[in-house]
């Protein structure tokens, strides 16, 4: 029996935490079939930070929604620790781009929400939520309502709330898109610090190149429709990282390299949307 567990543990160490295996998703629209995600495969190791970058309409959000379980109908397989994922499950946590904190709950009640729904007793969940608020740098704001806080603070509440369930994989769909550039950089620093501290396996969707370089171990560049993986860039910048690295030559090289590949896809997307506008 103990041998079995030992075996399982070693297996878990070598197996990827999340495996996306030949995933394809098509939508049927009035204009015909649109393939949003085409034959995407990807292995994510425990503790890894991966960013997916691509032009608007490349299907990156679709991919994220499939991993998160909001889209359960697709071809191929998504495996979490070797088990197939279809539909939502708490071991995959999602942070959304849009405002998602509950305005009727204080910061601490928001963070404790998943624990409360799971039936954790009050003292324990409040203590846990307090730890998480400390982690995201919101000590002292426990009893503030979201409307009394800034957009960046609200998004940190949303991140803390998702982390409350200790998800195996954290999915973030452009979580900083609605924030101003400076807040975005500082929040990036915070996220990278938390991710390293928790060794949290993270998958980030973004269209901001320097953000992807700043945070990630690997950056995946996706093609414009149909969404395929065009290239994977290893970001071997040293850790710990901070937004101050953005001035370095190596950082600039990564950004330029990614933009070189992304540019072509982005212009395809732009041409297509202009053609669609002209046709209207």
């Amino acid at each position, binding site marked *: 029996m103990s041998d079995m567990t030992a075996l399982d543990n070693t297996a878990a160490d070598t197996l990827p935490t999340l495996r996306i295996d030949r995933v394809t998703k098509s939508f049927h629209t009035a204009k015909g079939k649109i393939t949003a995600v085409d034959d995407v495969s990807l292995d994510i190791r425990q503790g890894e930070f991966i960013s997916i970058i691509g032009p608007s309409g490349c299907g990156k959000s679709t991919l994220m929604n499939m991993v998160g379980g909001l889209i359960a109908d697709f071809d191929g397989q998504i495996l979490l620790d070797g088990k197939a994922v279809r539909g939502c499950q708490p071991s995959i946590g999602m942070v959304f781009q849009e405002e*998602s904190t509950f305005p009727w709950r204080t910061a601490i009640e928001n963070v404790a929400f998943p624990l409360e729904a799971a039936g954790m007793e009050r003292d324990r969940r409040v203590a846990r939520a307090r730890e998480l608020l400390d982690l995201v740098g919101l000590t002292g704001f426990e009893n503030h309502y979201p409307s009394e806080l800034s957009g960046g603070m609200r998004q940190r509440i949303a991140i803390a709330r998702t982390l409350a369930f200790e998800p195996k994989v954290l999915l973030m769909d452009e979580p900083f898109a609605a924030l101003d550039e400076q807040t975005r950089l500082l929040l990036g620093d915070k996220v990278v610090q938390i991710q390293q501290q928790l060794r949290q396996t993270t998958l980030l969707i973004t269209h901001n190149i320097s953000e992807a370089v700043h945070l990630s171990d690997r950056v995946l560049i996706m093609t414009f429709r149909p969404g395929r993986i065009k290239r994977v860039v290893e970001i071997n910048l040293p850790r710990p990282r901070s937004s101050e690295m953005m001035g370095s030559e190596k950082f600039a090289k990564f950004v330029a390299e990614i933009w070189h590949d992304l540019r072509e896809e982005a212009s395809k997307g732009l041409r297509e949307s202009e053609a669609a506008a002209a046709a209207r």
Partner: protein
Amino acid sequence: MVAVGQMNEARRARRLRVSSVTTYRVVALVLVFASWEIAGASGLFFRGVIPSTVLIAQAFVRLFGDPAFYTHFAITLFEIVVGFVIGSSIGVIVGLALGINRFTGEVFEPMLHYLASTPKVVFLPILLILFGIGVGSKISLGAMSCFFPMALSVAAGVRTINPMFLRVGQSLNLSLGNRIRKIYIPALTPPIATGLRLGFGIATVGCLMSEIKLSNHGLGYAAMQSYNRFDIPTMLALLLVIFTLAGLGNYLIGRLVRLPGPTNRRVTALPPR
């Protein structure tokens, strides 16, 4: 110096406005009383139709000394409260069912809209047969009356909930019960509060309507009896009691139902002072 002068100016202007509002209210009340007395004394109406306020005051004294009045009062209050609670609760449940499930909403909501605009008193004969002449028919008409605004208000409210809140629930794989208790209900507090405020008045109307039509108890019945005896001062005193009851109920709901959030705002038509 200028700033201080402006502040004093603003304060004076506000005080002036408040005091003039109070003045006008008092003047309006005095005018109502005076015209009532003048109309009564003018002889333009049948004698006794517009009794002097003194007679009404005397009727009040007699009423409050009469144990039967308290029984009527208690029965009416009981009917309104029970009808209101039943109708509002079912209204919330049905509203949620219509709002959450698109299909049931599309099938049943138009029907509900048509029924909502029908005067509920047309159902009174059926309710009398079903529940008898006692409190049952009154409670059911009251419940029926306040059910509709609540159900429609909640159903419409569900569609205005920020979809992100629901996606959070979905991504956590919450059960339907948890989603309703922890996301839908708190997000729906404003429409539910509106439903309660509207509903209380309408439930009062429903209960009193059926008391007036056919019954053997309650304030509506007592008022009709006074009317049949042509005891207009007592009838008017009873109407004023009903009026106060409805107003007080509405006021209490406004005080008790609070919108969740930072200010703990009360649900009132007037901005809080």
